[in-house]
């Protein structure tokens, strides 16, 4: 395995350099026919260093990834602080770095609304879920949901909830990656997508959770460092006076003082509350995030991870706010960064990257470009691992083989699944190049909030939940969320071309999440089956384990 890994690594580097040096991209940039940068050598050098370092880690991790527990959860050997950083790494995607600073750049205050929504799920996750998840689960949240319920239907449902979330998120990241790398590095769109897909497959299949975790940690540190430096330079420009920063921004922005108040992001009360719910509870249902709680030793470390993650994520969102306002003044008024029509070169998501150029010159621009690339890689790796685990552990080992698969077989299926997911992500990434994928992350959060979250929370806290109820509620939530998004303006009108949407709002969570809970509650209450009664009976034991540790009921060691 290691031999093939180093061979692949060598091949990859050869490929990377060949692409860089002989592709027609240079010619395009010189002729100015494409709206992308010339080959960005500083960025490519820094990115190659990042890739070399992470592949080195993958090589190291592959020798330590032997068992199922190593592959899915790094053997539970990650510390609370490391895991907190890795969670922050998982969560601070390129979409939140570039997207939120771009939102601040175009609409000011609206960017803050978005980032707050992404943050407030974390305290809830800590208070209600983190420690209990760690006490009850091993590798996936389905372990927790299926603890006292019937394995087959619950794990199938959880795996579908996971895969739907992972795939939607993955496509959105891949398309974003292709477009971003095309602009930043001068590589072609499909080259970029393939490169991301191949590296992701390498990290996950060879290095499992250990490599994925360290890729996240390194990227989180780089991103936090880069964003801090940029925010510091912005503040220094305004003599560390935020009032000066805001008044300069207001005076140069085309929307004027409107950027200091809520704008067009949230159009009506329904959308406001619905988006809020999806962001808040969706976080607590994202499979790649939930999986991270199983990489630490115990509930205490799980708790510490959330505290560390919340701190870094909150700090990061404050930085993106400063970066967005800095860009309004330093990028928005500089003709070097603007196209003839006054729009931002390379698209509106480039605000933060141009700001890096404006504040730190070529070197810093190269660094931030490389960090953005690294960010995408790290996030897709986390997603692919979560998807592969849902296939290998939940669908194959527990549903198909009813828990009788050997450890070796299960790992092999999981690795195969990560390979298939990687290839699928490349194909879909290329297929969706020209499509609007903005609704996909929103839909992923809506599904997480309306399927995964209700099942987990009810199975932990509500004694009367039975398999029938969980399946009914989960299916109802999943179908409503998907159905309403299809009927909403973003898909029905923008994608399918109908004149008027059937469902007038963009965000379905306000309907689909309560429906999931109602379905699960009604389904459980009318369930008079014997197995249902046994599941309620088993709640006491599950509760004791979830509160004070799973090991406590086992017979003590004889001494």
């Amino acid at each position: 395995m290691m031999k093939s890994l180093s061979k692949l690594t060598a091949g990859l580097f050869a490929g990377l350099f060949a692409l860089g040096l002989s592709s027609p991209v240079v010619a395009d940039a010189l002729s100015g026919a494409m709206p992308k940068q010339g080959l960005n050598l500083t960025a490519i050098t820094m990115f190659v260093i990042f890739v070399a370092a992470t592949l080195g880690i993958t090589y190291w991790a592959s020798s330590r990834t032997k068992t199922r527990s190593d592959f899915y959860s790094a053997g539970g050997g990650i510390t609370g602080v490391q895991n907190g950083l890795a969670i922050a790494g998982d969560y601070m995607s390129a979409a939140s770095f570039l997207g939120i600073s771009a939102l601040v750049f175009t609409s000011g205050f609206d960017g803050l609304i978005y980032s707050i929504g992404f943050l407030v799920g974390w305290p809830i996750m800590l208070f209600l879920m983190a420690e209990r998840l760690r006490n009850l689960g091993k590798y996936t949240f389905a372990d927790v949901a299926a603890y006292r319920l019937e394995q087959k239907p619950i794990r199938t449902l959880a795996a579908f909830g996971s895969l739907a979330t992972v795939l939607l998120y993955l496509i959105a990241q891949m398309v974003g990656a292709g477009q971003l790398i095309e602009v930043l590095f001068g590589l072609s769109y499909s080259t970029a997508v393939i490169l991301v897909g191949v590296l992701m497959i390498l990290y996950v299949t060879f290095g499992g959770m250990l490599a994925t975790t360290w890729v996240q940690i390194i990227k989180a540190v780089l991103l936090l460092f880069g964003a801090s430096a940029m925010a510091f330079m912005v503040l220094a420009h305004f003599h560390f006076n935020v009032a000066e920063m805001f008044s300069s921004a207001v005076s140069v922005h085309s929307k004027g003082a409107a950027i200091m108040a809520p704008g067009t992001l949230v159009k009506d009360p329904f959308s406001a509350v619905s988006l809020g719910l999806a962001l808040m509870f969706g976080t607590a249902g994202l499979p790649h995030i939930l999986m991270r709680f199983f990489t630490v030793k115990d509930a205490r470390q799980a708790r510490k991870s959330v505290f560390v993650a919340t701190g870094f994520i909150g700090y990061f969102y404050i930085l993106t706010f400063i970066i967005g306002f800095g860009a309004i003044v330093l990028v928005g008024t500089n003709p070097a960064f603007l196209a003839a029509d006054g729009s931002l070169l390379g698209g509106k998501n480039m605000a933060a990257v141009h700001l890096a150029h404006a504040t730190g010159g070529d070197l810093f621009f190269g660094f931030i470009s490389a960090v953005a690339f690294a960010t995408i890689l790290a996030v897709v790796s986390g997603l692919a691992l979560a998807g592969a685990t849902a296939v290998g552990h939940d669908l194959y080992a527990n549903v198909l083989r009813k828990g009788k698969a050997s450890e070796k077989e299960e790992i092999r299926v999981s690795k195969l699944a990560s390979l298939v997911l990687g290839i699928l992500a490349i194909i879909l990434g290329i297929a969706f190049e020209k499509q609007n994928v903005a609704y996909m992350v929103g839909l992923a959060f809506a599904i997480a909030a309306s399927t995964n979250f209700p099942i987990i929370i009810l199975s932990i806290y509500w004694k009367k939940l039975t398999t029938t109820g969980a399946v009914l509620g989960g299916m109802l939530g999943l179908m409503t969320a998907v159905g309403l998004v299809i009927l909403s303006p973003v898909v029905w009108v923008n994608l399918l071309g109908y004149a008027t949407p059937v469902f007038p709002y963009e965000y379905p969570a306000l309907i689909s999440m309560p429906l999931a809970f109602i379905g699960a509650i009604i389904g459980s209450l009318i369930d008079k089956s014997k197995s249902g009664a046994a599941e309620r009976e088993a709640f006491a034991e599950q509760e004791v384990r979830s509160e004070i540790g799973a090991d406590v009921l086992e017979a003590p060691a004889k001494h």
Partner: protein
Amino acid sequence: MSLPAPAITRNPQYMRLVHVRRRLSFVLSLIMLVAYVSFILLIAFKPALLGTPIAVGSPITVGIPMGLGLILLAFVITGIYVRLSNTLFDPLTDQAREAVRQALKSKK
């Protein structure tokens, strides 16, 4: 050879731990939820209020400290929970685990 779980749920140390911790989790979740939903409802129904300057002539509007305050609140209440867990719940958990262990032993 294990103790039936319902017996443990009647153990006084266990009951105290679960009761106090559940109440804290519930109260803190409620604080976060109420603060966030109020903010969202202000955005939906009173956006102009959030756009009012905090002082005459200041470019900073009411929404800015409110938004940053929410980020700070999220961090502070997670900190409170972790602190209370370390000082209060962890010892209680250890006691409850010890009580269960003793009960298991005596049953043997």
